[in-house]
């Protein structure tokens, strides 16, 4: 055990000392901060849009439109009387970037509901939507008023309807929204996939390093191959946990400082226009995530260790790892099927098979309500799978690490395992 501990420590310390580790560790929070802040900044990009409302209506409807638009945060609008050459001069102003765009209200806009916007940037969905919504409100209001409806009644009738979705999860109604739980499931799947793949490949290249640098022989004379593999896998695994911990803490910190951060970026006050809102993550979800990450990591890194052991160099290893990566991809690529119908036969199967369950089960758990029993069965199958795969991998590892000839064929691999 002392020997395994030495391998774990070496693996851990050498890995944490690499530049790669710190780059990845720092990129995580930066990425997180970016997805938090960038949507907000994008919504505010260029700050307020300066637009003109070209009014051709008989009753200066354009004035009301300009006022209405200006009350929002997106636009500063001023009314321009329609006339000869107005469009040309406004176009020139847009060209010269003195103006972001202009809204053309034809004389019959209230009747037809047709208007036109010309601007330097018409691809901002948010801006176009704001424009359309504001205009819509006013036109509906104008039409109703024309029919003699009390303006106050019209205002009350136009209070927007918000459909608030809440998930029923394990007998309780949670505050999670549908979109939120999909995003959570998606982020989880990406994290699991990336982490299992990256750290698995790390184990592989670490085995390969010992092979190509011919350290293997001294190691094998002091350590059992299984001890070497175990130490490697656990060492790399603890590095990944450390990295997750740093990421989780920095994410928490960023979330709690979100307002201050956004203000610092000049993006306005609390809850400023959308952005990524992290739904609250229940402890049970974190537990499921960690349990299946660890299981998946152990399962896959044992396979990657065997791949490293049976390859002579990086190129060979890259080829030999493809089947392993492919199996891992199956679950990853099934995210949409899993979130759409977490309880279909397909989803259930994926979350039970040990090679796909490390990704599929946490996704299902987040996307829908799952009985705890099902999760426990999946964990049990996963543990059995790890034991089986590790046994096979250790036998391949044992023979492979001392092999110097060409890469073994499938038939030879089977013989190694049986030997």
């Amino acid at each position, binding site marked *: 055990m002392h*020997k395994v501990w*030495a391998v774990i420590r070496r693996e851990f310390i*050498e890995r944490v000392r690499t530049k790669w580790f710190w780059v990845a560790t720092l990129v995580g929070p930066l990425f997180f901060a970016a997805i938090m802040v960038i949507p907000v900044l994008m919504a505010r990009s260029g700050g307020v849009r300066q637009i003109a409302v070209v009014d051709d209506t008989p009753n200066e409807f354009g004035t009301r439109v300009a006022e209405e638009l200006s009350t929002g945060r997106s636009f500063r609008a001023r009314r321009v009387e329609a006339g000869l050459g107005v469009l040309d001069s406004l176009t020139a102003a847009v060209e010269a970037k003195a103006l972001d765009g202009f809204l053309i209200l034809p004389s019959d806009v209230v009747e037809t509901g047709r208007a036109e916007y010309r601007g330097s940037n018409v691809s901002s969905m948010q801006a176009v939507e704001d424009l359309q919504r504001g205009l819509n409100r006013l036109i509906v209001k104008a039409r109703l008023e024309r029919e003699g409806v009390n303006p106050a009644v019209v205002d009350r009738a136009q209070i927007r309807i918000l459909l608030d979705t809440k998930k029923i999860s394990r007998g309780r109604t949670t505050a999670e929204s549908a979109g939120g739980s999909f995003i959570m499931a998606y982020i989880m799947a990406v994290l699991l996939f990336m982490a299992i793949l990256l750290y698995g490949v790390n184990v592989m290249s670490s085995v390969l*390093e*010992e092979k190509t640098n011919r350290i293997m*022989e*001294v190691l*094998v*004379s002091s350590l059992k191959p299984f001890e070497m593999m175990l130490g490697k896998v656990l060492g790399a695994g603890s590095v990944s946990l450390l990295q997750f911990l740093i990421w989780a803490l920095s994410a928490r910190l960023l979330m709690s400082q979100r307002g201050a951060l956004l203000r610092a970026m000049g993006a306005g006050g609390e809850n400023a226009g959308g952005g990524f809102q992290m739904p609250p993550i229940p402890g049970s979800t974190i537990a499921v995530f960690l349990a299946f990450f660890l299981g998946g990591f152990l399962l896959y890194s044992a396979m990657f260790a065997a791949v490293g052991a049976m390859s002579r160099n990086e190129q060979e290893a890259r080829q030999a790892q493809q089947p392993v990566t492919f199996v891992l991809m199956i679950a990853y690529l099934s995210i949409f099927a899993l979130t759409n119908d977490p309880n279909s036969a397909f989803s259930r199967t994926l979350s039970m098979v040990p090679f796909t369950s490390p990704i599929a089960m946490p996704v299902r758990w987040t996307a829908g309500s799952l009985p705890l029993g099902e999760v426990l069965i999946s964990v049990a199958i996963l543990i059995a799978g790890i034991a089986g795969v590790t046994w096979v991998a250790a036998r391949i590892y044992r023979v492979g690490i001392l092999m110097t000839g060409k890469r073994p064929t499938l038939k030879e691999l089977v013989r190694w395992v049986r030997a």
Partner: protein
Amino acid sequence: MSAPVVRVDNVTKRFAGHTAVDGLSLSVPPGTLYGLLGPNGAGKTTTIRMLMDIYEPDSGSIRLFDTDRGGRAHSQRIGYLPEERGLYPRMRVLDVLVFLAEAKGVARRIARVQALEWLDRLGLADWRLRRVSDLSKGMQQKVQFISTILHDPDLIVLDEPFSGLDPVNSQVLRDTVVDARRRGKTILFSTHIMEHAEKLCDQLCIIARGKKLVDGALPAVKQMHGGKHVVVAFDGSQGAAARIFADRRLVARVEDFGGGGQEAELELAPGADAQEILRALIESGARLLRFELVTPSLHKIFVDLVGPDAAKAAAVPNA
């Protein structure tokens, strides 16, 4: 006599297609410098790997320190320098040494102290925090060598230790090995270069094609397999040397009669006494400058036993 440190008993190891070691038996007594000699491909490395638990023998048994547990179980007492050497290039020198010692079961604290002491002794103290890849090849060899003996093992196993070593490190290695032997440690090393073996070994075993040809103490092997040789040099008169040398009861073969007939090397006939030749020469009136009993070189024995072809192959290091 105490039990041998290493005892190999009728061990056979086959690989796909060929038998690398074939019914080999040998035993290494404690406190000896034991040479495992043979041409390339003789099975030296395979034998050593079986001692170290890297390979399992197909049949036969191996005992280390009089137990039936293999090299891995005894890793704390064994220092092993494999033929193929390597270190972690990105690790720091001190860390590599401590890790390799820990892998053998040595406590971290002790490993550190020992590593620093050895680095100091071999002039690498200033390099202890540098990466292995920053070191020259010669320095890396020293680090590798320190990792072999850092834990003061009772048995040192060296597979072709001199191959690839520069002369300075060769000497460091030799000194350390001799010093370890003086302190009662047992050393087993393999080589195909007989000059190394002749200078160092107490005991040896010559193998070829996986089979043992001869083993035992160096003088005994020389005596048994080389026969006795006499070098004779005359100072003027040769007396009846030509007649005496032709006497097949005394002289089996005259190897060399050069220098204008002033010098000769004789191989004595089996059972013949060198003193008889000396007396006969003096009685015949020969004046002698030199009359010396010599043993043949190990290289000659090796060539005789293995055959010239194999020996030629062996003369090319690491071919």
